[in-house]
């Protein structure tokens, strides 16, 4: 491979190239400043807040709190802006670090002994694993009191491990939504369904016109299949009730029980129905090859009428598309079996601290207040919280207002995305893969048996 002579010119050139690069690199190092992006809305628009709750934590001027989270662009800018009132009050600097590989890296960091002060954990299952490292700290009493006041007991339970309360809820998203085109509905005289039976009738009505009513896509790189798990969870909640759902998630009823079969078959009536899918994209099998980001765009193209996807799907529509009740696209609540039963499937993040310094406690407390939720609402688009103190009028985006209304509905029974709570071998592996096999032709029994077999003993 190598020969023995090199001309001295080549050596000089190599050395020159490398040293020039080194000098350039080092001078650049001296110039580069630490700023991880900046906000667009001036923080002053958020106004001053009541600083008295934080005086109890002592003088915090000049202290730093580091955050590590999977929330990256473009959702990170509003996050940073919403901390400004706290920073102004206390003199604490918040160091924000967003990383899409958060879910694996945070475990490595916790185990290596350099965890961040605060991590925003998007899955209760991951929260339990982080607490199991022994590095996490319980939430301070001030935070716990605010969570009791501002959040439902179900939300507090997701942040509790072994009877100890660790993590207050931060943001939330609603997954039980069906996207549709308001204009198409008015033009054709369709009405938003309020029961599952009505949803079926509506689908049949649209299918009778020769149009395929539903579009779906479950491709998402290595996570391909996750939108299918949401479909099944939504129908499990609706057909079997919240109590059965809780047992299913904890594996107190087996994954291949009759309840599961009922739920998956109900999904099949929509997604494995050639008359219903896949609007603008092909046949049933095209669901597996369409990315989840692209599937719902068919509503704008007019090739599809209904698309079941979470509130965060709003970010996929381009800037010229108006997402509103009187706009190009909007969503309705995926109805329950009857109009008064309102199970809601969703997700969210939880604030887990790895330090118990006063400034960290003060910041945790700030994030649990309705003051923060409202400040965040004003600068965000595509964000909502389960905080009961959140004023819906402060939310800018119509779809966020809808999500907040659904979350705050007194009849609503919120349940966290089941695949995020099941063991990783099922929730982020077998469930995804078997759901993908199911859509490409595997039968329901074989699918559910395979997932049950994958459950860690």
């Amino acid at each position: 491979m190598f020969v023995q002579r090199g001309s001295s010119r080549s050596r000089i050139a190599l050395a020159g190239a490398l040293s020039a690069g080194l000098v350039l690199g080092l001078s650049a190092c001296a110039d580069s400043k630490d700023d991880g992006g900046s906000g667009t809305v001036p923080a002053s628009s958020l106004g001053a807040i009541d600083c008295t709750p934080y005086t109890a934590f002592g003088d915090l001027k000049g202290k730093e709190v580091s955050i590590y989270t999977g929330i990256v662009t473009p959702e990170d800018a509003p996050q940073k802006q919403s901390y400004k009132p706290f920073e102004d009050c206390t003199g604490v600097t918040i160091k924000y670090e967003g990383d899409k590989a958060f879910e694996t890296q945070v475990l490595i960091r916790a185990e290596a002994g350099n965890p961040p002060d605060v991590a925003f954990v998007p899955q209760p299952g991951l929260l339990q694993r982080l607490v199991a490292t022994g590095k996490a700290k319980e939430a301070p009493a001030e935070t716990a009191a605010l969570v009791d006041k501002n959040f439902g007991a179900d939300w507090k339970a997701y942040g509790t491990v072994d009877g100890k309360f660790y993590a207050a809820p931060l943001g939330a998203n609603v997954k039980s939504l069906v996207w549709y085109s308001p204009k198409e509905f008015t033009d054709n005289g369709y009405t938003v369904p309020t029961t599952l039976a009505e949803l079926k009738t509506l689908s049949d009505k649209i299918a009778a016109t020769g149009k395929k009513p539903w579009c779906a896509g479950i491709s998402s790189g290595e996570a391909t299949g996750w939108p299918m798990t949401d479909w099944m969870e939504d129908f499990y909640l609706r057909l079997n009730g919240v109590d059965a759902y809780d047992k299913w998630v904890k594996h107190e009823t087996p994954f291949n029980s009759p309840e599961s079969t009922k739920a998956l078959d109900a999904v099949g009536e929509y997604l494995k129905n050639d008359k219903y899918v896949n609007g603008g994209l092909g046949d049933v099998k095209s669901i597996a090859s369409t990315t989840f980001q692209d599937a719902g765009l068919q509503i704008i193209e007019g090739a599809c009428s209904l698309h079941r996807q979470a509130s965060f799907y709003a970010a996929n529509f381009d800037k010229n598309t108006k997402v509103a009740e009187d706009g190009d696209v909007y969503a309705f609540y995926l109805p329950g079996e009857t109009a008064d039963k309102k199970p809601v499937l969703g997700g969210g993040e939880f604030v887990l601290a790895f330090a118990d310094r006063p400034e960290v406690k003060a910041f945790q407390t700030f994030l649990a207040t309705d003051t923060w939720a409202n400040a965040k609402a004003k600068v965000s688009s595509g964000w909502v919280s389960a905080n009961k103190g959140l004023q819906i009028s402060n939310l800018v985006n119509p779809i966020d207002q809808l999500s907040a209304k659904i979350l705050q509905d007194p009849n609503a029974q919120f349940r966290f995305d089941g695949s995020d709570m099941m063991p990783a071998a099922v929730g982020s592996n077998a469930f995804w893969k078997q759901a993908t096999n199911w859509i490409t032709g595997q039968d329901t029994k074989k699918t559910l048996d395979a997932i049950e077999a994958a459950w860690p003993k």
Partner: protein
Amino acid sequence: MTTAAPLTTTPVATTETKKLSAAASAKAKLTSPWASLAAVVLAVLWTIPTFGLLITSFRTTEDIRRSGWWTTFTNPLFTLDNYKAVLDPEQAGANLPDSFLNSLVMTIPSVIIPLCLASLAAYAFAWMNFPGKNILFIAIFALQIVPLQVTLLPLLQLFVAWDIDGTFWTVWLSHSTFALPLAIYLLHNFIKEVPASLIEAARIDGAGHVSIFFRVLLPLLTPALAAFGIFQFLWVWNDLLVSLTFAGAPAISPLTVQLSNLTGTRGTAWYLLSAGAFVSIIVPVTVFLLLQRYFVRGLLAGSVKG
């Protein structure tokens, strides 16, 4: 691309087969028009995805989402918006210009440190005698089989204990350690092939180890150093795993880390990736093209003289 060369070489080959050297017969076989055609076809096939990526990086968001890049041939519509978005920290949410410099700051020492250490170590293993030399060399050779993934957690614990966590040192040290076994092994084999008479002549002239290394061997080593330098540069520049673990903080994160975050929390901005990819491959392509010229010249110079 194809030439008339086979017409002249084929008859010669039939009559004087035994006289032809191995190199000449290889040349005769490789310069057939079919081989050239195959090479061109392979090159084109190999380039198509990159070419598609290049075209995609100049298309509008809507076009990228709605149709394939090949439709631009019938419906050309190009824009620089993707590049503007990627390079503007406010829009991309990632500071690509800064992380570009971070990548340079990380990569250059991560190439130079192992090159310096490995060439000295390789000399010692090749031309010096000391007890335990063979065992030590086998140990270094064997270290190549350790997958770097298993070292990440212990290394991070070590860095935390040394309190250099979150600095460039973590990346420099880890990339250097990962590179050393292969570098020492490669350079050792190279140095071992230098004729012993050359070293002996230098010794008779009164040269010690230091002057033998710097004045006799180092000039000869250049092609090997360039070759390993290129490999190591490309490897470190494109590395994501090590940087994610040790240098995830925004202040020191390299291009690869920022690129992976560019698509947004739920991957909605994936159309920015093509432009981001082209920003990040500027340096490796430049380095490869510039250094490859010297690398190849070094090879040729060696083969003619020696």
